[in-house]
């Protein structure tokens, strides 16, 4: 199936490069804050020694879903947020990542997977800490450890600024990748789609009937799951879509075929005016702040659109980050010293109680030009802003996650974080639906 996206923004991509092993990484983190609605139960204390694969924390609502340490080392820090919500667990270590290419053919691997029952596969992924790689929409949350999805998407396309080509990310792992797709397709009631760009290889013939490729072509939102769902399977209440990133699929396949995990991840390091862009093999959750060649620059975990500055205490990559974007250090804008005093210092002008944002939003055409979903953007965004969730659901907010609205936050000049509005809407809807 071929789908052409006409509107959006073309961003530069990272030039293809061989993956190279990064010098040793001194700390990794497993993050809980990137999973919406996760209430974590800590299983370790600061100072504990842990081995690779040991459970660090689990989900309170779904105790079978565990989050494991990708390295052997010592628990250095446990970051808590407001109301003692777990943000991340940092493990100090000294390792370099390694990931051997799989020598077996896809057919053999798929046969191996076919010999396993669905419950065996589920158990294997839950125990090895791979289950959190599966996310569910509506809600953009962790997939529940029981049950299955109506439709399953393997996300093998990335159109974000300076994104890496998934074909390069999967180099040498094709056989385990297709095995992972075959295993995942057991959890889909209706269809499994491998969403990819035109250059991505077709699924091997043995996968016919299990998974098919959906080709997306065009500018930026073409690579986002919300766009894929909107075109392939628009969601309504009572329908569930699961989606998994392609590198996680390869890891899931490797876990089933070899019985072990590599905990390695290819991450591309690039950015505007950054000459030595390259692809690195890093352990999951590696510290992105001290990578070689980025001294004096500002690294961003993830893309420019939906990522976050790699500043302490959040300098580690998340599970779903495929790239580190490197920006030049920005000087503070003129007048900042007047408006934003240093923390703990009085303002230099006598500021009264001023609410920071006035909440204006213009219906300007630039927003429509970046929007690739079937419904017009401004009514949807305004429904989210004003809390008109019935209208928002009708307009398809169940398909969406925060990253889908990042481009709207950029295109709308109104300083709104539409991702945050969407999260509020999804939380409210899930609370209402749970009752």
């Amino acid at each position, binding site marked *: 199936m071929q789908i052409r996206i006409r509107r959006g923004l073309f961003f530069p991509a990272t030039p293809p490069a061989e993956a190279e092993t990064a010098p040793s990484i001194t700390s990794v983190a497993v993050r809980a804050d990137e999973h919406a609605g996760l209430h974590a139960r800590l299983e370790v204390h600061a100072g504990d020694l842990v081995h690779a694969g040991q459970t660090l924390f689990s989900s309170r609502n779904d105790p079978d879903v565990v989050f494991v340490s990708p390295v052997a080392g010592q628990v250095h820090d446990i970051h808590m947020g407001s*109301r003692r919500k777990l943000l991340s667990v940092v493990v100090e270590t000294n390792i370099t990542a390694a990931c051997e290419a799989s020598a077996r053919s896809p057919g053999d691997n798929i046969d191996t997977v076919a010999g396993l029952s669905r419950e065996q596969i589920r158990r294997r992924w839950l125990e090895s800490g791979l289950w959190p790689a599966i996310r569910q929409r509506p809600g953009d949350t962790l997939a529940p450890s029981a049950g299955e999805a109506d439709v399953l998407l393997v996300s093998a396309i990335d159109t974000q600024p300076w994104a890496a080509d998934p074909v390069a990310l999967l180099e040498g792992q094709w056989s385990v990748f297709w095995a992972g797709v075959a295993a995942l397709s057991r959890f889909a009631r209706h269809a499994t789609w491998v969403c990819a760009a035109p250059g991505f290889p077709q699924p091997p013939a043995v996968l016919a009937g299990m998974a098919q490729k959906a080709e997306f072509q065009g500018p930026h939102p073409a690579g986002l799951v919300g766009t894929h769902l909107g075109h392939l*399977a628009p969601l*309504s209440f009572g329908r569930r879509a699961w989606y998994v990133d392609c590198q996680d699929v390869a890891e899931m396949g490797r876990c089933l075929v070899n019985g072990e995990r590599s905990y390695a991840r290819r991450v591309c390091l690039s950015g505007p005016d950054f000459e030595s862009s390259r692809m690195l093999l890093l352990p999951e959750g590696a510290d992105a702040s001290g990578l070689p060649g980025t001294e004096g620059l500002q690294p961003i975990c993830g893309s420019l659109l939906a990522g976050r*500055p790699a500043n302490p205490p959040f300098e580690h990559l998340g599970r779903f980050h495929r790239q580190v974007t490197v920006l030049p250090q920005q000087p503070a804008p003129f007048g900042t010293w007047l408006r934003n005093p240093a923390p703990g210092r009085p303002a230099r002008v*006598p500021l009264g109680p*001023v609410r920071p944002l006035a909440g204006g*939003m213009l219906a300007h*055409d*630039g927003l429509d030009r970046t929007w690739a979903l079937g419904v017009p953007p401004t009514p949807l965004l305004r429904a989210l802003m004003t809390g008109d969730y019935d209208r928002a659901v009708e307009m398809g907010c169940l398909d969406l996650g925060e990253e889908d609205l990042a481009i709207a936050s950029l295109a709308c000049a109104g300083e709104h*974080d539409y991702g945050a509005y969407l999260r509020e809407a999804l939380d409210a809807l899930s609370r209402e639906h749970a009752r």
Partner: protein
Amino acid sequence: MKRLWNQCIAAWSGSRSLPLPYRHGDRPTALCLGQSSGLGTVYYRIALAGVLLLPHTLANWVEHFSGVDGALSGGHFRFFSMLIVALFISVLVETVFAAGRRLRVLDGWFVPAWLFMLVVPADVGWMQLVFALALGLLVGRLLFGGPGKQIVSPALLALLFLYTAYPSAFDSSGSGPSPWVKWGGLPDGGTAWWPLLIGSDGALSAVSSPAACVLAGAFLVLIGVVSWRTLTGGLLGLVLASAVISWVGPPGPLTSTPWYIHAVSGGFAFGLVFLAADPDSAPLTPGGRWMLGLLTGVLTVLIRLADPSHPDGVLHAILLAALFAPLADEWFVRRALRLRRLREEAWP
């Protein structure tokens, strides 16, 4: 008093540039580029597009006051002093509202005053200017809550107020020193088209140079502030209406006016680019934008030809069209929802 003063200062220095916030426990979302530059950038660009119209406006003011004696009565002096007063009124009104609401001053406070001054007839009196602009800002902008929430452009309301309350300011047949027609509607028959388009003297029949408005419109469309649909729709509506009327209407010099004369006369070019397509009050859907443009074009021709007491008709046409825009929006949104529901039901 001290508190009021502090509140006013705070309204202007309220934190515009937020540091990248990470609230503990929240999920990270678009924080890097996604923290966009603020509505101010959009308004600065609209104001910049308005600068293209300035030479024509200044030429008109200079010509208008050329016969008047007195040291401080030149057109330049008069225009810029009135501009300063208009901006001062904006600052005053906006500060009072912002301080009262404990908000920072809304972005784009200077745009209505700037657009208003670009096209206001030079005959306007000082108090007329003050009243019209203050009312336009109050009713058009601040009552509804500011950027993106208003129904019609505040500059449009200010001009309409002036037009209704002080029609003499718009009266082109009056005894002013210079017979510049401006908001007076259609020119006499036999006028050449090129001078009308450029707005050169001798045949001044538009409020500002239509050629400059075309340039400004192209700039605003290019940077994504204004929708090309509204502009195209407006021209299309104008062409359609004038063609239909010249075909079925009673014969006469007015009804046989071709569309290209309609397009370059009166306030049509300015009104379409700066008042109808204004992103502050623009419709939310692409279809709604088409409707707004089409209605503006059609109504302009209808009012011009059918009502001799409104020789220009653009302001009223935009007002009426803008009031229908939310209805059109709702219709197009429901259509999009229907299509989406069909797609939802299409897969098993």
